[in-house]
């Protein structure tokens, strides 16, 4: 896919993630023991053979830049192409919509020579290559292809809503687009915010939006042009999870304890890449009791861990009990403390004998560096 440019929106729904996004963008929230949310969008593009990727940021992107570095872990540290971080111009306090964000990347887009652009939101956990979707886009002579997932939408409290729900005809031509409609438990086609579009068309749409003070990709482009542009839907039938709330983040992490979902995401030829930390393997002592858990390198486990996810460098001391929790990088869980349904951000210390319990649908979040 040398003829395709990747553009990642790395700032979606930041405000819904509470303390997890206090000091970082949603796309750089740690996920699955050693990854960041953005790794999926980035790896998908790289695995599709895209070698030039722009990353559109808005605010709090220091952590994201630290994570991405020069892009070498994704093989995007290139002489030609590679990774470009596109921060906002200083006078911008935020983007009202994706078209406004794209205006910021206009130069980058205009100077590129690729024929197609993949617009990818970095808030979806999935493992997909775009080769087949791009072939579909070309075969149909489509102007825009929306990648969608068919199924019942799991909605979580505090989330961004049901998202972009589309309807397609027998030819997969999109016939209706609804943004955040109220839906029940019915099977719908939900857009994954992964969009294929011609580069010159994208340029003219950005111009059109700018000159008319329009900014929304969904309302001002997709809905307005539903009839005069050929907009198609392409079904993705693998696993995916949208991260737009603490509850959905927690659920997506816990999904990884399911072997089939793990296989679909990770034990594939197309790997998910992430920043390397050079940790020693994890050490289990004689007092360790670990079941049904996902554990990254660099941990020392002396206590009990059940149905949980441990990131790199976590120390679980003797007598400590962790159940149904997500423990991020370099946390220390001291003697005889107990955690249930907790999400501890990086560098949290739980002191001896402390007991903290959240609830399944409302896990307790401990902010980065807090000491309990």
């Amino acid at each position, binding site marked *: 896919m040398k003829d395709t440019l990747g553009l990642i929106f790395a700032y979606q729904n930041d405000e819904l993630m509470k303390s997890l996004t206090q000091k970082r963008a949603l796309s750089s929230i740690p996920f699955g*023991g050693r990854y960041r949310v953005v790794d999926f969008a980035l790896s998908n593009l790289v695995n599709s053979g895209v070698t030039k990727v722009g990353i559109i940021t808005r605010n709090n992107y220091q952590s994201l830049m630290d994570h991405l570095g020069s892009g*070498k872990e994704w093989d995007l540290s290139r002489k030609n192409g590679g990774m470009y971080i596109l921060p906002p111009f200083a006078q911008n306090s935020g983007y009202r919509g994706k078209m406004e964000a794209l205006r910021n990347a206009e130069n980058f887009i205009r100077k590129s020579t690729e024929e197609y652009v993949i617009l990818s939101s970095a808030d979806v956990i999935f493992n997909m290559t775009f080769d087949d979707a791009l072939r579909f886009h070309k075969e149909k002579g489509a102007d825009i292809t929306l990648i969608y997932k068919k199924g019942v939408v799991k909605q979580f409290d505090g989330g961004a809503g049901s998202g972009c729900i589309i309807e397609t005809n027998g030819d997969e031509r999109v016939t209706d687009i609804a943004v955040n409609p109220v839906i029940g438990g019915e099977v719908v086609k939900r857009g994954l915010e992964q969009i294929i579009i011609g580069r010159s068309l994208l340029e003219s749409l950005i111009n059109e939006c700018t000159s008319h003070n329009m900014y929304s990709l969904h309302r001002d482009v997709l809905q307005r042009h539903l009839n005069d542009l050929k907009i198609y839907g392409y079904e993705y039938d693998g696993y995916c999870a949208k991260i737009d709330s603490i509850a959905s983040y927690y659920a997506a992490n816990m999904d990884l304890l399911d072997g089939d979902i*793990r296989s679909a995401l990770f034990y594939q030829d197309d790997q998910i890449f992430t920043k390397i930390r050079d940790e*020693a*393997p994890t*050490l289990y002592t004689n007092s*360790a009791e670990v079941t049904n*858990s996902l*554990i990254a390198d660099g941990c020392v486990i002396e206590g009990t861990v059940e149905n949980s996810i441990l990131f790199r460098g976590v120390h679980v001391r003797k007598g400590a009990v962790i159940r149904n929790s997500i423990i991020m990088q370099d946390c220390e869980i001291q003697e005889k403390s107990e955690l249930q349904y907790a999400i501890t951000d990086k560098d949290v210390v739980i002191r001896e004998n402390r007991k903290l319990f959240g609830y399944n649908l409302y896990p307790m979040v401990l902010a980065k560096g807090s000491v309990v």
Partner: protein
Amino acid sequence: MRTKKRAVAMLLAGGQGSRLGVLTKKVAKPAIPFGGKYRIIDFPLSNCINSGIDTVGVLTQYMPLDLNGYIGNGQPWDLDRNDGGVSVLPPYVRGKDGEWYKGTANAIYQNIRFIERYDPEYVVVLSGDHIYKMDYSKMIDYTEEKNAACTIAVLNVTLEEATRFGIMNTEEDDRIYEFEEKPAHPKSTKASMGVYVFEWKKMKKYLEEDEADPNSENDFGKNIIPNMLAAGERMYAYEFDGYWKDVGTLQSLWDANMELLLPDSPINLGDNTWKIYARNPNEMPHYTSGHAKVKNAMVSEGCRIHGTVENSIIFHGAYVGRGTVVKDSLILPNTVIEDGAVVEYSIIGQNTHIGKNAKIGAPKEVAEATVTPGKMTGYMAVLADDITIGDGQVVAPAEMLDEDRL
């Protein structure tokens, strides 16, 4: 013109490591996996970068493919540099008379041009078969301080152990007056660690003289060091008191790995001030299932553990099935052990497949009490890389297997 370097390191990685038996059938000794995710060569390479040495020549000869691929551009060790970095140096043909590396000294001799590109003051000679953390820059400082032509790192061993090492006999100020290889009656307990610092100009002279001598074995220990001593060069022993382990035999490889499980492991891999770097296999975190029981073990990323693991090191990407028992063993990368198998006191090579209910080795105490030890394996069962053991098959303790058993 390249920048002048204070020191260039030359890492001798061409040895076959024949005492490691089937494990080195396909890979050179320095490329043998160690400690769950590392390879032996990660230790000297990481020591170099942590010591501020950014120019390293790796001399390969035996089974170099794996090692070359592993070192690559040196990026995992931060040795991908515009000026210097890591270079893999295989023997090559010059005019009509190309030749293999005849000995350790000849290997350096053949690469004099590589070293001269950097015009170094000192050359550090290392080998790729030891597990240790050492700051070579301190040893170079010591060499400079003593105005020595050569310093040799030594470790204090017991008198009994001294009979198995090259021993440095020194004056009170650590100046070496005699070198004895494996002395029957050692006069000193200062054992050579195989780490040398040479003043480059002197070294070059002795390498050239050695090359001109048709009777020489072209070896540092046998020729260069004795020749320099005989000529009255200033040579000093540099005492090192940290952890250092030769992993040249199957037993010592097993022992050194198991020492990682000790409560205060002498080679602390979690030390952030002296990290050991390795090429990252990019695997997901390991999964320990609801049926698993893992005690006193090291488990690396990408593993899936459904059975019982005790006193063992499970390297990255390995799979341990349900009802399977792994005890006192090293399971090298990407090995699959299917349901119901028992693996005890064994070393299992990379990418090897062990079928259901297979039985490999025997409990350590049982093996030690009932079995005649193998010359290389001792009481362990040792399986080569890339072989398949069929369902229900047995591999006896002390057995070394390098073919399928179906």
